[in-house]
């Protein structure tokens, strides 16, 4: 492939090859094909998230209450700041990518190397941040009870209105069973780790502490979660069957299970795109260093991976809006 400058086309030679339809090279067009189809894939995912949300519009978890962590600030309620930071990191790595493409047009190998390097660093920080976000989400914060119908019951102090973690009020009951390990009893039989407290322990602690009330998933007309009175709470807790700590694909202490499923699936799929983007950028980065494109006479490969990288940024803009803002 030669340089992507517009060459005057000889009309007699239209069918003889060498013509560029739409004034773009083959590789770039194929990258655009991929991006358009991937954009439709992502919109399918985000729209199905919207479907589930509209279906459960009166009980969907409130993102501000779910993502409240910031590195090194323990116990500080910092909604959104961390994702905002992640967004800036990704936009910034997009900028260094355009600068690399621009330097490539001017055949400045040193600058392309530097900007590609910065882009890779930005992408790596972003993937790391996403892993940290996942870790917090999976670990959970307060814990909750789940009823037979799959509804989540969370606990509040009715004087302060603050959430209370299960471990803070549950009363230890002697003789409650522990996690069955493979080294005990029947050979090779194990089970997944039991929650740190049992339903009976939570119930005993709840009944003895007069200040505690239950908050259910349902949203009131102001968009806040409904808080039950003490009497209603005492009745409601009898419906609880399971202790839920953190979130996975089956249980979710923050509320609706589908929220966790979509969170894992969509941010996971996006994170996978970022990860593969970092790998592809690394390959191109080493090609730049060994001078492959200098010899080829143009840096169009940098432009093509750049398109992919910006697309990943573009998708994040939408994921950010629909998971964290709206």
């Amino acid at each position, binding site marked *: 492939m030669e340089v*992507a*400058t*517009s060459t005057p086309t000889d009309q007699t030679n239209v069918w003889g090859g060498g013509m560029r*339809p*739409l*004034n*773009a090279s083959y590789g770039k*067009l194929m990258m*655009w094909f991929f*991006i*358009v189809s991937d*954009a*439709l894939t992502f*919109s*399918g995912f985000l*729209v*199905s998230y*919207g*479907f*589930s*949300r*509209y*279906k*459960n*519009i*009166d009980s969907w978890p409130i993102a*501000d209450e779910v993502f409240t962590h910031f590195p090194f600030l323990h116990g500080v309620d910092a909604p*959104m700041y961390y994702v*905002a930071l992640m967004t*800036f990191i990704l*936009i*910034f790595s*997009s*900028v260094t*990518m*355009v*600068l690399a493409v*621009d330097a490539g*047009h*001017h055949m400045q190998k040193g600058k392309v190397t530097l900007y590609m390097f910065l882009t890779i660093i930005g992408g790596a920080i972003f993937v790391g941040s996403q892993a940290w976000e996942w870790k917090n989400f999976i670990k959970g914060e307060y814990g909750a009870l789940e*009823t*037979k*119908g799959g*509804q989540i019951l969370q606990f509040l102090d009715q004087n302060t209105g603050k959430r209370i973690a299960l471990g803070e009020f549950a009363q230890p009951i002697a003789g409650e069973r522990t996690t069955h390990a493979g080294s005990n009893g029947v050979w090779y039989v194990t089970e997944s780790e039991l929650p740190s407290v049992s339903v009976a322990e939570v119930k005993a602690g709840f009944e003895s502490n007069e200040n505690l009330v239950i908050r259910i998933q349902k949203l009131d007309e102001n*968009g806040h979660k409904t808080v039950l009175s003490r009497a209603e709470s005492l009745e409601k807790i009898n*419906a609880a069957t399971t202790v839920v700590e953190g979130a996975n694909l089956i249980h979710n202490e923050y509320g609706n299970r589908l929220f966790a499923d979509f969170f894992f699936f969509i941010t996971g799929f996006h994170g996978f795109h970022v990860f593969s983007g970092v790998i592809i950028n690394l390959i191109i980065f080493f090609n730049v260093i060994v001078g492959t494109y200098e010899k080829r006479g143009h840096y169009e490969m940098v*432009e093509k991976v*750049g*398109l992919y990288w*910006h*697309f990943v*940024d*573009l998708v994040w*803009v*939408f994921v*950010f*809006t629909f998971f*964290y*803002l*709206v």
Partner: protein
Amino acid sequence: MAADQHNLAIFRGLLKFKSNQQKIWGVLIFLSIVTIIEVFLGIVKPQFLMVPFLRMKLLNWIFIILTLVKAYYIAWDFMHIRDETSGLKGSIVLPLLILIPYLVFIILLEGDYIFDVMRDGFVSWNF
């Protein structure tokens, strides 16, 4: 595409940059400002924007519009759609512009319908 072929004006020619690098930094500043506004609104949640408008809170409409603005500048300036031929522009943007709103419309309408059925139906979903 050669460097001198870049279209260096944004905001419909309101803002013209001298070089492509300057335009990139300019777009970064613009995207950052939009993101800061979004985060600010998301944290403060001003009461006058919490009113329902076309079946959604007004604030959510603002978020979606700001997101589309950001998407436009990422695609147009970072992905250089601004510098492509109109044929390529159209073949990238039109399929997305036609298919995605259609999908959003039918699927969200269906979700809303199922919400109504689950609320007003005879089956208890909360036992």
